[in-house]
């Protein structure tokens, strides 16, 4: 009976439409975060170039990756620094 009343006066708490909307939002965030290895490599090289202006880094041990969370995406870089460059 309660269900009948609910459907009469405007549906349940989370409708399948809401579920679809939430699932889509999450899946698109993940889709957008998928960049090709080629682009990732360009990004890595650009980061090395910029950082190398200020410090000497260990290129072989550095890691750059996109990390997917439930509902967000982060670019995480771990760059070992060997030495600072000194400016005068």
């Amino acid at each position, binding site marked *: 009976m309660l269900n009948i009343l609910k459907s009469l006066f405007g549906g349940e708490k989370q409708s399948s*439409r809401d579920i679809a909307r939430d699932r889509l939002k999450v899946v698109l965030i993940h889709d957008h975060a998928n960049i090709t290895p080629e682009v990732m490599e360009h990004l890595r090289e650009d980061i090395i170039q910029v950082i190398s202006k200020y410090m000497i880094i260990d290129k072989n041990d550095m890691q750059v990756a996109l990390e997917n969370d439930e509902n967000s995406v982060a670019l995480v870089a771990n760059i070992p620094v060997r030495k600072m460059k000194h400016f005068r």
Partner: protein
Amino acid sequence: MSQVIVVTSGKGGVGKTTTTANIGVGLAMRGKSVVLIDTDTGLRNLDLLLGLENRIMYDLVDVTEGRVPYKKALVRHKKFETLFLLPTSQVKDKSSINPAQLIVLCNELRKEYDYIIIDCPAGIEQGFQTAIAAADTALVVTMPEISAVRDADKIIGELGRADKDNIKLIVNRIRPQMVEKGDMLDMNDINDILSISCIGQVPDDEMVVTATNKGEPVIVSGSSLAGKAYTNIVGRICGEEIPFMEFPKEGFFARLKRAFGM
């Protein structure tokens, strides 16, 4: 100023060809000169929706390979004399035409026709890249279903990569009763998720099926809901401000009946 419009979707079966046929006929009904190009090589269908399947002599590949001038391959519509179809090849494959050839052809057509509308194949491979190459505007057709929306998002990304910035969305096959019940995404939901402005929403309408059976796009009779929706889209393409249609709501008694399973 003539315009080249590509109708695309990513996912198959969402109504690209139906949309192309209706917009083409709608523009011709307003007196515009229109060429519809079917680029779904190997899977010819636009001719059927327009009722022109028995009039085809040459196809797009004959034109791009230089066997006949395009004027010879164009099929004039029986009823709307400013509407022409350039059919696709039923025997060749999708690599038979390349983007450069289609750009050259569209530039020729621009000189003589108001609108050139390209029906794109499903998918994001070569055929898609060819179809979008010459377009000024892209109409992305989608459906209120998660897989279709995801594919539309992918297509929008691909269009962006090809520097196509003028993108408009059409949400096809909406079932208003299901939306009302909270069981289907509506235009605003999809708009919100894809962040692309909408140029039309078309209800799921049995009249589309009967129109297809007869080879006369649903916009011709104009009395059906889908026909009105397409008429509105055509108006918006021509630059008119037309409010989005309200779908008829299910009344209280219909809801009551449904709730009690009647």
